[in-house]
């Protein structure tokens, strides 16, 4: 009898281990390359040429723009969370313009339905979810057939007004992960490319089911201390008006 129970419990343990190994959480690490658009460089250079500043200074700025370096970004995800950050810029590129694809990290939690932009100046910003519209356009990125999705995003400009930017995302339905770079997520497939007014972000490497220690997810824990997008805009406004007053004095 005892022998039987031992056998049975051994079998149960084996069965349990079997189930456990099956329920491994899906994870992955995606590298994106950010590149500034030539059209943006051209218009920025044209604008600089009209500015009344010293010639040598102008030359330096134009040089920095025309030799813009690409940036690399890493997206790590596990189960219902993702973390996206910019790889540090190489020392030799420090004087040049980057990809203009931003540098703040983003944390996404699908269960809490939150997309959070991590900033030091304004706190952790609770981003408004984007409404995607899938079009019938497709294109190939790598071996993946990607579908096109479009959305518009409200942006606060430095001059103190709102503008709307169109964003095009190319996502791969064959990689069923609803994450993506920056605050762009929620599509039925991994976003492999973002086409923005000033830059493009393209996936250059995708590693799925990797060792947990290779994942870099910095969780934002104090969810109740988030700053809403509206509040963050207000704060920018305050800072800007303070600055204007300072210039006047």
């Amino acid at each position: 009898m005892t022998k039987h129970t031992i056998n049975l419990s051994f079998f149960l343990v084996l069965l349990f281990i079997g189930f456990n190994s099956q329920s491994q959480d899906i994870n992955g690490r995606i590298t994106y390359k950010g590149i500034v658009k030539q059209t943006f460089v051209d218009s920025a250079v044209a604008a600089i040429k009209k500015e009344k500043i010293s010639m040598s200074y102008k030359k330096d700025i134009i040089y920095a723009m025309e030799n813009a370096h690409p940036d690399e970004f890493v997206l790590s995800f596990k189960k219902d969370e993702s973390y996206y950050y910019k790889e540090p810029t190489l020392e030799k590129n420090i004087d040049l313009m980057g990809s203009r694809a931003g540098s703040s990290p983003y944390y996404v939690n699908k269960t809490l339905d939150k997309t959070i932009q991590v900033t030091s100046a304004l706190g952790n910003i609770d981003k408004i979810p984007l409404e995607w519209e899938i079009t019938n356009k497709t294109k190939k990125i790598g071996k993946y057939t990607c579908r096109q999705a479009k959305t518009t995003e409200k942006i606060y400009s430095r001059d103190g007004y709102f503008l709307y930017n169109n964003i095009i995302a190319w996502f791969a339905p064959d990689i069923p992960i609803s994450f993506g770079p920056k605050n762009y997520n929620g599509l039925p497939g991994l976003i492999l490319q973002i086409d923005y007014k000033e830059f493009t972000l393209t996936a250059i490497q995708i590693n799925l089911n990797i060792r947990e220690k290779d994942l870099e997810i910095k969780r934002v824990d104090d969810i109740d201390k988030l700053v809403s997008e509206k509040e963050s805009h207000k704060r920018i406004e305050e800072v800007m008006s303070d600055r204007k007053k300072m210039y006047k004095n």
Partner: protein
Amino acid sequence: MPFRLYVLFSFLVLFQTVGFTQNSLTGKVTDSLNKPLANANILAEPKDSLQQIKFAITDDKGRYRLDLKSIPYTVMANYLGFAKKSFDIQLDRDKTQDIILKESAEGLQEVVLDMPMVVKKDTILYNVNQLTTGEERKLKDILKKLPGMEVDKNGGITVNGKKVTHMLVENKKFFGGGTKLAVDNIPADAVK
């Protein structure tokens, strides 16, 4: 008053004829052991390509909801590590449809998907068409976009940190083999 009623009535008639009625397709996505699959992707593609594509992502209890017109759709459910499942549907009223996905063997091991480049011992082949946007003007604009490759201020090229000393165009040295002349002068559309 009768005029208002007339307007209201004509609006109602208009909506009946012009607008499609929307019905909702709801259900649960589970694995074969009836465990709910959260964040599964569901795509509803209309047979008529001019119609709007709909999608849903399941919540933490595996539930989804699609608001569909009464036209034929192909619904695809997909979850990482599981086999894709699709079915055709045309809704005339609200419907509940649970989807069971089966685990596929390829799901669990590590997968590395390098984007359009092939590494063969000491050669890296890039498929340039897939990496460029058509906006590039000079060779350096293309090279900058290739994974692992960097072009510095002086036209020097590094691949995965190693400096490129010779550059061959059609197997011949290009103006003595220096990279600067080549990257600044060869037009982007010459690269296929």
